[in-house]
């Protein structure tokens, strides 16, 4: 125990050093924000360390692992007061406490802080169960031994094979329990489409004709914003899946395909041809601003996740969507991005049995219902037994569309190495959007950096 703690502190120290104090004192203030993050991280782990020693102190007498008298620590990536996202998780925690008698010790952390300190969190003294995503990053944690094998908890009633697959790491074992998901699709205003006599396109020709007609009527076909860097990844993902297929997309994300090959160049080239149909100057526009342009009818469509509703300040009654149409008939259009949220059990958690038991329950229909009944905005439950009575039309349709999809990707920044997604792909896609004609330069640069990172 002690050596783990010491090892961890050492690491923490090194990490914090690299981030802020490598700079002479006079400029240390430079990284005020940076330092704050680090301090927050340290504070967080400090708390965790404190908690751990407390637990260690009382850990001698082996109380029950689950049921009354037991405690399970539950770390969630939504802070109190952010709205539905937190309310749902808190309600789920409460429901589990009532049902199992296990005391749930909720640790609510601000989303970005949680994301950014996940490494030190998992290697310190994390909560037993914590919120996470399916995909490469889950697999990465599994490989590093940071999360617990949950294959003895699977199958879980009501979670179908595609979810099981999404919960599986390359070693063939499950490390994750899904609770909800949302699809990325092309959103539009029903009223605008109706007024103009437009219909969702089913073929590539329909699609091009629709965009030309929109332009003819003075409407920009696609709203587009990439100031934050990640929204355009959604466009890359869907184009790659439509042009090169799901399998190529996934192995490209895993670093097994060339970024400077003809396939990826083809994706950028198609994107370049589609760019005139997109809002100009995307790099200064947030996705919220782009969503607003679609909401106001200045743009006809917007490729985004269902969270597009949040930016419009309405319940989405006038919104509908279709999946991105096929571009190559031999590939089809049955793959899409639908990031899955869920839970993992931390290997360093104190109460493994309680964590596993809770994780299994979190996959149940009861957990999803408890969450959805408590918040004004429901999520789309992964469990097919969950009640859909609180769903909006948009959500019902989302569930249908994702259910019908043959292959589900998680989104670029969940499907590939986080270092690569954040430090290479975001700037590279932005460089492409800045200068769409230099495809060779962009892809060559991505490949060079990929070599260095995937090594």
């Amino acid at each position, binding site marked *: 125990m002690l050596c783990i703690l010491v090892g961890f502190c050492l690491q923490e120290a090194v990490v914090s050093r*690299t981030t802020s104090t*490598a700079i002479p004192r006079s400029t240390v203030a*430079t990284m005020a924000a940076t330092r704050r993050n680090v301090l927050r991280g340290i504070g967080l782990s400090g708390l965790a360390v404190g908690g751990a020693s407390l637990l260690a102190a009382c850990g001698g007498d082996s109380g029950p692992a689950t049921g009354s008298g037991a405690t399970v620590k539950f770390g969630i990536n939504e802070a109190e007061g952010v709205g539905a996202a937190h309310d749902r998780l808190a309600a789920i925690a409460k429901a589990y406490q009532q049902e199992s008698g296990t005391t749930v010790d909720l640790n609510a952390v601000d989303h970005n802080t949680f994301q950014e300190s996940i490494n030190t969190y998992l*290697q310190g003294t994390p909560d037993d169960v914590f919120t996470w995503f399916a995909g490469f990053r889950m697999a*990465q944690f599994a490989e590093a031994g940071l999360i617990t094998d949950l294959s003895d908890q699977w199958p879980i009633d009501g979670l179908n094979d595609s979810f099981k697959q999404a919960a599986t790491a390359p070693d063939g074992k499950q490390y994750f329990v899904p609770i909800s998901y949302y699809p990325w699709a092309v959103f539009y205003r029903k009223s605008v489409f109706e007024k103009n006599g437009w219909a969702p396109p089913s073929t590539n020709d329909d699609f091009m004709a629709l965009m030309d007609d929109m332009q003819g009527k003075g409407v920009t076909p696609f709203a587009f914003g990439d100031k934050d860097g990640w929204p355009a990844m959604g466009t890359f993902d869907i184009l790659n899946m439509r042009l090169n297929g799901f399998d190529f997309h996934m192995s490209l994300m895993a670093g097994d395909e060339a970024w400077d090959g003809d396939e990826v160049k083809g994706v950028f080239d198609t994107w370049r041809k589609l760019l005139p149909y997109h809002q100009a100057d995307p790099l200064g526009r947030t996705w919220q601003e782009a969503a607003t342009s679609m909401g106001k009818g200045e743009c006809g469509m917007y490729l985004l996740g269902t969270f597009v509703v949040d930016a419009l300040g309405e319940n989405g009654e006038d919104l509908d969507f279709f999946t991105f149409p096929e571009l190559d008939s031999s590939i089809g259009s049955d793959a899409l991005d639908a990031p899955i949220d869920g839970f993992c059990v931390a290997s360093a958690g104190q109460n493994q049995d309680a964590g596993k038991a809770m994780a299994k329950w979190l996959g149940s229909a009861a957990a999803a219902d408890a969450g959805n009944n408590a918040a004004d905005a429901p999520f789309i439950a992964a469990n097919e037994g969950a009640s859909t009575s609180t769903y909006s039309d948009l959500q019902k349709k989302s569930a249908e569309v994702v259910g019908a999809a043959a292959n589900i990707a998680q989104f670029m920044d969940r499907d590939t190495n986080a*270092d690569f997604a*954040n430090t290479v792909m975001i700037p590279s896609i932005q460089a492409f959007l800045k200068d769409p004609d230099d495809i060779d330069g962009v892809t060559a640069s991505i490949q060079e950096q990929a070599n*260095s990172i995937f090594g």
Partner: protein
Amino acid sequence: MTHIDEAPLSTEPEKTVAPVQGREKKLPTRDRATVITMVAIPLVLVVLLVWVPALLSVVLSFGKWNGFGDLDTIEWVGVQNYQDIFTIYPAFWPAVRHNLIWLAFLFVFPTVLGMLLAVVLDREMKGSRFYQTAFYMPVVLSLALIGFIWQLFYSRDQGLINDVFGSQVDWYGDPDINLWAVLVATAWRHTGYIMLIYLAGLKGVDASLREAAAVDGASEVKTFFHVIFPVMRPINMVVVVIVVIESLRAFDLVWVINKGRNGLEVIGALVAQNVIGEATRYGFGSALAVIMMLISSIFITLYLRTVFREERNR
């Protein structure tokens, strides 16, 4: 009255004698303890919080590590991180250039403007207190907040500037413009800062100097450049240091705008991108931090050399 006169007399010999003895021989134990404590505590803090971490960063910069596992999982890759930074990391050279532009810009515009405002406000015109407060106001705001405030002006579709002028300029998004847009926002804050420093300096200038200059028939402008400005040399040094530090620590503003990407690359933001966010390229980030440290050292060395030379000349 008499005892007041006597008091200094009685203490003076002691004061002058004690240091002489102290320097040659030993301080009393208590004084020694005090001195040792006063030197040791800051020394320990500086070594632990500045030098050790800086050295460890240098060490880490020769490795590749994603933060998973213990320190023995660090893969030592020699100078590969540096090589990658200089050759294949597209953001690096723009970042260096942006930091230098930042430095030059802060020296030229806000500093001169701040100085001008200080001179004008120093004339005790009507309402100068009000102006003083107004110009200084942005300084109390954090740079992060300033980023948000200016976003309201700069937003392409919903911003004030484009609304008023009916233009379509993508102020924060166009990589050819956004650096300048950000520099204007920085200057908005920096000007007030410089103004206040100069104002304080001007208040401290001996009034008789001005009078003498006026008697000699020097014009206002001449008085300022030939008499006042040279007298304010210490203030000028402070300003130089502040400007250099401000431009090297350029980070907050670009971070809130777009995390230091797309035309707003600065070294500080690159370090953070690689280490703080979800990416955990500790080795690569450390290498960037070391480069930043070296660049800062150049300026610090220059500054210290000037300061020390000045002291020697005295």
